[in-house]
Structure formats: structure tokens, C-alpha cells
């Protein structure tokens, strides 16, 4: 078992964790605030990728797309929240069904507009960097670094700013927070914007590495459920931790056991963690 191989595995796990955390963050905060599961969240992820694709097809640079696509997706998320989801937020099942309907519509629209065939975005830069004796793809390294930076920024925002404090208060006890004068509607809206934008960013970041197809978002959605349950629902610190467990576990386990067993083990580990610590790694009860 050479060091190179293990390092590569760990780095792969890290990049997957970062992506999962970015996606799951929005889902987690929205659930913490509004107690609803946004089933269209996976579509925000894929729209980020398609958005980047479209921007680059217009001739603009990858970096423009990397900024523009998440913002556009965030805006879309906000609009959907204002227009529809806000009215249904009182009922978990209503929001579930409505957002699922939305996700069906978005998927189908993507297929109608862009076609069912998978697209690919070019990496903005190729080549590899040397980590010791290991050659690791440069773009993947960028994903790790950028992802960690964004996550760190989000965590800082959450724990160090007054707005973050308001969100935390609202998650902890919504009624009290409203009673204290916190504008919970505005917080919901902004969180929806940010959460969707983060998912879109994940999609844009990942787009050079995965084939972009209308259905690509669904697999990440299910993984996100696990991430937020393991990390602790509504916990911004917990979500990256959950991402680490799920993403890291998936990568690391694959080299010891068959990939099928690895998947089963990861699910079992998640289940064990959650039964031992039901609020998740960082959740509060």
C-alpha cells in the first residue's frame, strides 16, 4: 500500500466531500429554517453546470461562468421561493410534493432545451501538480481549495456575523426569533438564495469532470440527504463534517473492498452514526 495511492484516495475523497458539502449546505439550512425538504435542490446543482456550459458557449471565460451561473441559480431559487415555496412552507408534505413537481419540470425543460445527450465543459486548466511524488490533477486541486474556501467563508458568515446569528436563532427556535423581531421571512428568502447558489456553484465547479445530463442531479440529492442527517440537520458546521464522512468514506472504502460493499458500508456507517448520535455529529436537540 503505497503512500501515493493513499494520498490520491484521500484527495479524491476530499474533493467529493467538498462538493457534497456545498450541495448539502443549502438543503440543510433550508430544512433547519423551514422544516421542508426542497426536492428541486438537485436540479439547482445541475443548472449550475448547464449555466456554466451556456456561458462558455457564448464565448465568455470559464471564470465568468463560475461566478455568473451560481448567481443565476441563486436568483432562480429565490424566485421559486418567493413565488411558490413560501406559501407552502407550513406543510412539509405540501412543500415536498410541490418541489418534487418543480424538479420534474426543471429536468424536463433542461431535456427539451439542451437535449438528453450529456455535455461536457472543458477544464479551465489542465495538467497536474506535484504533491510529493504524487501527480494530482490541477483542476481537482482547485476544486478542493476553492470549495474549502467557500465553505469556510460560509461558516464564518454563519458564526461570526449578525445575520448568521439571526439564522442560527431562527433555526433553533423560530417562534422565539420572530418574537424577538427577527424578520424570518427575509432570512428564509436569503437562505434560499444562498443555498441554491451554493448548489449551483457545486454544479459549475464539477461540470468539467462529470457528463452533464438532465438526470445527473438526482444521485447527488440522495447523497445529500445522508450528508445532512449524518452531519446534523441545520448545522452549518455539521454539513461539511457529514460531507467528509460520506464523501471520504465512499472514496476511501473503495480501495479496500469491492465498490458495491463500499457503498453498503458507507450507508451502514451513516446509519450507525445517526443511531449513536441522533442529532448528527454537530446537530443540537
Amino acid at each position, binding site marked *: 500500500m503505497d503512500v501515493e495511492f493513499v494520498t490520491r484516495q484521500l484527495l479524491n475523497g476530499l474533493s467529493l466531500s467538498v462538493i457534497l458539502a456545498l450541495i448539502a449546505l443549502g438543503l440543510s439550512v433550508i430544512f433547519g429554517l423551514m*422544516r421542508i425538504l426542497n426536492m428541486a435542490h438537485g436540479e439547482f446543482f445541475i443548472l449550475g453546470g448547464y449555466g456554466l456550459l451556456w456561458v462558455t458557449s457564448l464565448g465568455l471565460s470559464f471564470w465568468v461562468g463560475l461566478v455568473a451561473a451560481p448567481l443565476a441559480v441563486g436568483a432562480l431559487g429565490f424566485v421559486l421561493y418567493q413565488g411558490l415555496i413560501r406559501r*407552502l412552507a*407550513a*406543510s412539509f*408534505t405540501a412543500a415536498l410534493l410541490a418541489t418534487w413537481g418543480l424538479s420534474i419540470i426543471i429536468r*424536463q425543460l433542461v431535456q*427539451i432545451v439542451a437535449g438528453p445527450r450529456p455535455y461536457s465543459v472543458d477544464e479551465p486548466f489542465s495538467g497536474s501538480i506535484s504533491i510529493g511524488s504524487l501527480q494530482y490533477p490541477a483542476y481537482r486541486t482547485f476544486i478542493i481549495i476553492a470549495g474549502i474556501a467557500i465553505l469556510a467563508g460560509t461558516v464564518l458568515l454563519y458564526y461570526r456575523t449578525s445575520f448568521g446569528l439571526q439564522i442560527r436563532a431562527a433555526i433553533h427556535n423560530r417562534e422565539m426569533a420572530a418574537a424577538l423581531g427577527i424578520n424570518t421571512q427575509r432570512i428564509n428568502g436569503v437562505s434560499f438564495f444562498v443555498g441554491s447558489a451554493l448548489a449551483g456553484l457545486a454544479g459549475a465547479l464539477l461540470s468539467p469532470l462529470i457528463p452533464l445530463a438532465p438526470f445527473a442531479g438526482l444521485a447527488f440529492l440522495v447523497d445529500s440527504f445522508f450528508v445532512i442527517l449524518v452531519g446534523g440537520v441545520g448545522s452549518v458546521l455539521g454539513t461539511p463534517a457529514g460531507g467528509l464522512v460520506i464523501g471520504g468514506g465512499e472514496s476511501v472504502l473503495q480501495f479496500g473492498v469491492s465498490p*458495491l460493499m463500499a457503498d*453498503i458500508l458507507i450507508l451502514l456507517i451513516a446509519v450507525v452514526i445517526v443511531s449513536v448520535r441522533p442529532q448528527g455529529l454537530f446537530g443540537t436537540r
Partner: protein
Amino acid sequence: MKAHRSSLLPLARASRLQPAAALGVTALALLALAPLALSPLRIELLATFLTFGLVALSLDLIWGFGGILSMGQFAFFGMGSYGVALVSNELVDLGRLALLLGALAGIGAAVLLAVALSYAFFSTSLGDLFVLVTIALAIILERIAVNQTELLGGINGILLPYWAVPTNIDGYYLVVLAVVAFVFVATTIAVRSPFGRVLRAIKGSEQRAQFLGYDTKWYKIAAFAAAAGIAALGGVLYSILTGFVFPGLVGFEYSFDALVWTVFGGMGTLYGPILGALAVNFAKFYASDILLDYWLLLIGFLFIAIVVFFPDGLVGIGRALRRGRLPRRNGLGAMRAARGFLTARGRNF
């Protein structure tokens, strides 16, 4: 005063029940007469979707009444289906008896698995996050089904022997209808029984039920096992009707669809989810006929529309007609309805 009221109660309940029961009997009669009016294809679809309705009903039982979300009910449905498929192919000489044995095996396995899982997880302090277990169950079982080509048919699934599939579709439809009606009546009685009342109390607040002296774990296990058995029964009926089983039947996608049917139809009613299963599946069938390229858009809008106008689902239509107006989305009432997913904070309003 109390004595007076409690003696009046059964009477009041009975009279409230009878008109509803009459409506139910009418519906059942109409459904039973359907073969006279509908084409064989439609009857076959109706029968198939009724088996899906059983899964939806099972989900309503465990979630609508028990407060335990299961995103893996089709795992049990699939176990029932595969049980029949495997045994009937193995014990060909036994003919129809093999179907019965397969049904018992599949349903039995489903119930046992349900008991084992729920015992393991409800014994710890938290069954709320049990949803994770159910998702994992569906995903893992589907992977295994795809993987095991020799044992379980792999990705192609298994075809039942030709003699297993009924040729008299109308007759089989009536059998399915009878089973569904029976299960509906049985579960309705169960939820109105003392057992059912405790279950609903647990859904409201498990802690409170525990303080009242109930061993909530066993009630939940029983409900989950019953739900598993009902779903598996649906699977048995399905595989005999269609003659095939495939890995998707145990998987997460179909399990999530069951959730959609249940919510669409109306939770907490036991008949709503059956209607939901019928409505959604027929809607998909006819929509794809009318709008070959855009039918999914139609379905998506349908989901949004039902939720916007009738948040209680299809059953809300009935209530709205009775009241003469559209249901108002009452914030407080709806919030109460939303309780029961991931966390009970012990607050008591």
C-alpha cells in the same frame, strides 16, 4: 356530565361514520362493476395501480398515523414480488401452490426484516431518523438485485412461469379489488381501535405516550411490520398479474413515488393514498399519450397544482365540496400536520 358525554360518543361516531361508509360502498360497487364498462387494458392498469395503492396505504399507515416516514416501502413490495417469482420458478411442479408459498415467503421475509430493522432502531432513543435506514434499505436491496444475476435475475429481473399469470384479467382484478378493500377495512378498524389510538398518540408526541405508560417501541414495531406486510402483499399481487419482477421494484425511485402518491391522495385517510396511486399513475399513462414530448411537464404542474389548491391532497377535494369553498391554508393547523418528520423538540403545542 362526563358519563352523559361518553355514552353519546359512540352514537355520534357511528352516525358520522355511516354516510362515509355509504360513500365507500358506492365507490367499491362502482369499481367492482368496472369490468363491464372498461376495456381489458384499463382493467389491467387498474389492477396494477391498485397493488401500488396498497403500498401507498401502507405508507399512510406508518407515516400518516404513526409518524414514521419510510422512504423504502417498495423494498417490501419488491420482496413480496421476488418471493413469488423465485419460488414459482423453483417449485414449478407445485403449480399454483408455489405461488402461495412464494407469497408467504415474500411477505414473511418482509415482515421479519421490518421487525428486525425497527427493533434495532426503535430501541435506541431515536426512531425519527429511521428514514435514513429505510432509504438505505431500498438502495442496498436494489443494488443486490442488480448484482445477483444467477440468484435474483440481475438487471433483467425475473419472469414468472407462464402458468402463473392469470388469463382471466377481469377475475383477477376482482381478486385484487377484494384484497385492497379488505386491507382498507382492516387497517381502518385497526387505526380506530385502541391500538390505533395509541399509535396516533405516539405520532403526536412519543414522549407523552411513554409518560402515559405505553411501551411505544412495540407499537411502532407492530405498525411498521404491518405496513411492510401490506406492501409485500401488494408486491405479490403485482408480480402474479404482470408476470415479471425487476430490480427497480425494490428501489428508492419507486419508494419515493409511493410517497408522492400518498401525499397527492391525502394522508391520514387510508383511502386517499389509494386514490393518489390510481390518480397519479393513470395521469402519467394518459398524459404521455396526449403529449408525447411534454407530458412530464404536465405531471409536474399537476403536483404543484394539487398542492396549491388542495394541500390535503385529493381527499381535500371532497372536503372542499362539502364546505363549499377551497380549503384555507391554516397556518397553525398545517404546522401541526407537519410535525413528525425529523425532529420532535418536545415542545407541546
